[in-house]
């Protein structure tokens, strides 16, 4: 094999002049830490999503027109179903491996978003977003938003009872925009809910628009990462701003990445056998107007669902427009959180009067603003997420749902504020001992 590879590489090099940039890339230094692999897990999950997604696309019918199912699933044979749901039943019951690939796809989507969120947390907490890496940080935030969009549209496509309920909520959220709401809803849905356009359009968003943007921006994210130096954790006795300590891409990091691909693939395949997270066989197709008692979105939208559930029914008039609860909980709240995320690198720089570039990561417990912001926002989102499960918590604890709702109304404000204050106090003391926030600037 080796002579063939040599010949191939030689031929490529003669035509594309790869030797110099190739060597530089292969020698790129990757510092060693488990938390640097979170982004790679997201990347691997994305690859699995694309591959399984291509398979699923072949068998999916993006339409809500009624068709009669005549496959092997007894519960549905001879029934008229929305075409999208019918194709999911067919995929599950009549396509060999269909259910397995659907479950892997769903599991990979969960892991993709979870790993992206953990990666973001790592970047925020350790200060990897600081100059000169704000640019890649912002690309990353756009990627997370797109991942949410891909997750939501994918949840909607099977057009089962939960999916339809989710689309209904999204439609109302769009309508709640002041001034432009009805136009916006019309542009995206092509009419009043439920329209025949929803599933075809969501299909285009899910298999073309969002993945296209994701692939482009992930490439940009990686190119910027390759172009810039990798951040590293502080090591005693080493000036991390001048030297990067780590392993080269080839062969060390490549070996780790290969193992990670195998681990993640195995994990998702095992999960697909054991965990039926994409099954919609019993819950049945969506019928407009019929909502099950147990309707929740996927976990990454729990915080918005929770905000919708616990926000008291507010509605007030501003000149020429009515502002409603769904707008505050579903649009303003995520707008504020993502706005703060995007603005944070500049805020930290301004507040601490920082200059220059940062290549060594800092302990968040030594930067009061960062510790307080991270703790406050994270606990706030976590408590709102818990509020989205208020019906299930109520059933488990036998506490009336109204009491639980009030509990979350209070704790979602008090607990993040209190923990944020404590984090600030602790980080201020510890940071002062460590020599202040600007102590390791280049």
């Amino acid at each position, binding site marked *: 094999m080796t002579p063939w590879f040599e010949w191939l590489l030689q031929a490529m090099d003669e035509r594309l002049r790869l030797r110099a940039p190739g060597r530089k890339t292969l020698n790129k230094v990757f510092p060693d830490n488990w938390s640097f692999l979170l982004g790679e897990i997201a990347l691997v999950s994305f690859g699995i999503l694309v591959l399984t997604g291509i398979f699923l696309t072949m068998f999916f019918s993006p339409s809500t027109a009624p068709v009669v199912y005549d496959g092997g699933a*007894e519960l549905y044979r001879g029934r008229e179903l929305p075409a999208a749901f019918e194709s999911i039943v067919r995929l599950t019951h009549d396509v060999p491996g269909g259910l397995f690939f659907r479950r892997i796809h769903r599991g990979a989507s969960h892991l993709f978003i979870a790993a992206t969120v953990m990666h973001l947390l790592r970047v925020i907490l350790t200060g990897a977003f600081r100059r000169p890496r704000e640019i890649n940080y912002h690309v990353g935030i756009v990627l997370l938003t797109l991942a949410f969009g891909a997750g939501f549209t994918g949840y909607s496509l099977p057009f089962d009872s939960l999916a339809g309920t989710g689309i209904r909520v999204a439609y109302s959220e769009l309508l709640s925009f002041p001034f432009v709401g009805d136009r916006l809803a019309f542009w995206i849905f092509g009419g009043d809910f439920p329209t025949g356009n929803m599933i075809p359009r969501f299909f285009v968003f899910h298999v073309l628009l969002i993945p296209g943007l994701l692939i482009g921006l992930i490439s940009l994210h990686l190119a910027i990462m390759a172009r810039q130096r990798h951040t590293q954790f502080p090591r005693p006795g080493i000036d991390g701003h001048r030297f990067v300590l780590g392993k080269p891409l080839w062969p060390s990091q490549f070996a780790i990445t290969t193992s990670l691909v195998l681990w993640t693939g195995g994990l*998702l395949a095992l999960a697909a056998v054991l965990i039926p997270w994409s099954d919609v066989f*019993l819950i049945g197709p969506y019928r407009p107007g019929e909502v099950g008692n147990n309707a929740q979105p996927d976990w990454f939208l*729990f915080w918005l669902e929770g905000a919708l559930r616990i926000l008291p029914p507010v509605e007030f008039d501003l000149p020429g427009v009515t502002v409603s609860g769904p707008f505050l909980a579903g649009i303003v709240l995520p707008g504020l959180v993502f706005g703060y995320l995007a603005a944070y690198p500049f805020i930290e720089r301004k507040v601490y009067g920082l200059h220059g570039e940062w290549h060594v990561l800092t302990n968040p417990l030594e930067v009061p603003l960062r510790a307080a912001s991270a703790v406050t926002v994270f606990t706030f989102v976590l408590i709102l997420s818990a509020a989205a499960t208020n019906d299930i918590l109520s059933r488990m604890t*036998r506490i009336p*749902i109204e009491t639980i709702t009030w509990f979350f109304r209070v704790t979602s404000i008090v607990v993040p504020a209190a923990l944020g204050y404590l984090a600030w106090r602790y980080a201020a003391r*510890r940071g002062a001992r460590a020599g202040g926030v600007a102590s390791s600037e280049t």
Partner: protein
Amino acid sequence: MSGRAGAGTRRLRPLLSWALLAVAGTALTAGAPGAQAQQDAIDPATAIQGADVYTSQCARCHGAAGQGGQTPSGPDAPALRGAHIALVDLVLRTGRMPPGDPDGDTKARRPLTDERRDALLAWMDDQLGLRGEIPRVPVGGNPARGQEVYAANCAQCHGSTGGGGVAGGGAFTPVLVDREPLVIAEAIRMGPFQMPQFGEDVISDRELADTIAFLEEVQGEPGTPVGLVELNPVFAGAFVFAISLAAIVSAMWLSGRVSMFPDAPEDGEQP
């Protein structure tokens, strides 16, 4: 069944009064519709067993004459005289009554044996003048049609797959899988507690059979090797947490470097 030894004498007095009441009741309602049922004598052994169950497990709260009363813990116990027979049967079959804990913890579910329940019901029907009748359980339903009937009439409160839900104000809609078909039929036809009643004009006998068949289909769904059947997103979220942890552990294992920051300097120590 505590205090069984002394039960014999305690049992006789109410029995006598029941006999008197029954005579009076029969005299009063003779000729009224439904009187025929009350005149059908029940087997004496059944009557004795039913009376025994009633006096030992019901009379304390609901009163010796089924007139209602108070539970030891405070809340009112409803009158049983003239109650709907399907409601009484449903409450007994699902184990809501008699309380599993004699001191009145109504959340414990310990249903009577079939024999004791049937005796109690026959005796109550005979002595307390229960109204209505136990609905028929139509058989041979089609689960496919049942899913549509269920989605249109039941899912709003009981969840899309019969998992139960919240009804507000501390009330909960019960789980519907693993229920006897008769209980489903009784609930639909009679509308127990806060549940609305569905007559044959809303859910026909055939649709009732379909609904029961659908719930049996849900119950029989095999699930994965670890026994999981379709997950609500909340439980799916718990598994997302689990695979995220597995991913973190594999990242730690692969990189071999778990520590992140050097230890914090102690107070007074120079960084």
